[in-house]
């Protein structure tokens, strides 16, 4: 029979219980649950995110299916200045595999706080995992420490030429030489480091991977204030000490589009509504996005994401 569910009833029960656990966790922390549109005028500008476009029946462009609810949540945050979270579908074109699906469930939350926002974020992610799973409290480790331990290089100082050699072993010299610094770091991290992260939060990423996180200097190195949670070798959540400066934000949009052009990928319209929200004032805050299906996958020790979702591969 075609089109049967890909998840067992047992997994669906675990999924329902995880979703209600997540809701209780945020309710207890006075966070407002909101649900936001899935379609927006401007998609995420990250060079490696592909958004589906939405057209009306006449074929006229309407907008983009969002890769995360970030733009709407930040606009709400700027208006209401309170903790909030959303659990909903996110869409990413061209992402399919045992750990990827084009349509998946994302939990994203924001919390305004002026007191040590980054540390508060890391401990809130730790609390969430400790409360809702049997994995225990994730261990915090810096990107620099783990990268140095694996490759013997400081990732914040390393230049592309120094990393090409390592990437050559994986991709061959020609493909390795075609990668920029960001992709070199990504492939090296994803192949040799990520599989060994059993329950870890990696903090302080290379500045080139800042996306919409703040960049800070900790003396010798400039780092992006990002924290990523990995369990069982899978990337589960990604948190930022959020950028609040509209000028810097606009500059990053332009930089993303410039990189898109270099990579021969389509440029995207600038998210003016988000820049307006930052201009009118985004509180000092942090934000975290968490892949609910991925978390369920590691909690149930499933082999693939599709075992954790009602239907996959049906298109």
């Amino acid at each position, binding site marked *: 029979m075609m089109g049967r569910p890909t998840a067992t009833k047992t997994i669906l029960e675990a999924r329902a219980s995880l979703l209600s656990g997540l809701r209780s966790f945020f309710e207890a922390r006075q966070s407002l649950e909101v649900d936001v549109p899935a379609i927006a005028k401007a998609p995420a500008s990250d060079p490696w995110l592909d958004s589906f476009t939405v057209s009306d029946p006449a074929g006229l462009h309407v907008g983009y299916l969002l890769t995360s609810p970030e733009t709407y949540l930040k606009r709400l945050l700027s208006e209401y200045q309170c903790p909030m979270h959303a659990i909903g579908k996110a869409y990413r074109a061209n992402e399919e595999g045992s*750990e990827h699906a084009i349509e998946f469930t994302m939990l994203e939350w924001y919390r305004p706080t002026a007191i040590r926002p980054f540390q508060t974020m890391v401990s809130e992610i730790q609390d969430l995992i400790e409360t809702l799973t049997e994995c225990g409290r994730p261990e915090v480790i810096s990107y620099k420490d783990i990268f140095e331990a694996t490759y013997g290089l400081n990732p914040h100082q390393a230049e592309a030429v120094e990393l090409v050699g390592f990437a050559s072993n994986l991709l061959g010299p020609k493909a390795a030489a075609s990668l920029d610094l960001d992709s070199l770091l*990504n492939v090296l991290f994803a*192949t040799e480091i990520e599989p060994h992260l059993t329950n870890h939060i990696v903090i302080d990423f290379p500045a080139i991977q800042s996306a919409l996180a703040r960049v800070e200097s900790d003396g010798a190195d400039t780092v992006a204030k990002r924290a990523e949670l990995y369990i069982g070798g899978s990337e589960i959540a990604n948190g930022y000490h959020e950028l609040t400066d509209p000028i810097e934000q606009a500059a990053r949009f332009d930089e993303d589009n410039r990189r898109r052009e270099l990579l021969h990928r389509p440029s995207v319209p600038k998210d003016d509504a988000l820049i307006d929200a930052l201009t009118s004032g985004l509180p000092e805050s942090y934000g975290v996005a968490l892949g609910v299906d991925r978390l369920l996958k590691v909690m149930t020790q499933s082999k693939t994401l599709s075992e954790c979702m009602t239907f996959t591969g049906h298109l």
Partner: protein
Amino acid sequence: MASFSTNEFKSGLKVLIDGDPCTIVENEFVKPGKGQAFNRVKIKNLKTGRVVEKTFKSGDSVEAADVIDLDMEFLYADGEFYHFMMTDGSFEQHAADAKAVGDASKWLKEQETYIITLFNGAPLAVTPPNHIELEVVETDPGLKGDTAQGGSKPATLSTGAVVNVPLFIEIGEVLRVDTRTGDYVSRATKK
């Protein structure tokens, strides 16, 4: 020349890597949330049998290998080549060298059907059927009354293969053997 993009990768796909025919054993899509996507692929070199791991940028293409598996009947060996004939009625013949035949040489029996893997039209590998029936040509005499369990002895089969068999097996008997493990399975059922 045909080629496959990484999003067409799946196990069993035959591709050309550094000039060698390979088959994809496992394909994994790897993509950090914000980063470039890669495919980590386990590839078996069909010439050497070695399995290696390789990484591709998602979206890149790899040349397809002209590799095809065909059913062929073994005809004879002439000392240098092993001759096979298509079973599709075309009577088309192919000569495989010792390298292509490899370990399958000890399971070659006339009129038996084998899978011949052709690369650019030439035999690259020979795969015997999982089970094959062969006659015992040499073994120590069987022990009277010892029909149940206990002990085994070597027996040489008509193809030259040596397998461990129960003590009651005698010369001239036809045995069913698992070619993947080289293990004795049973006496062949009398026809």
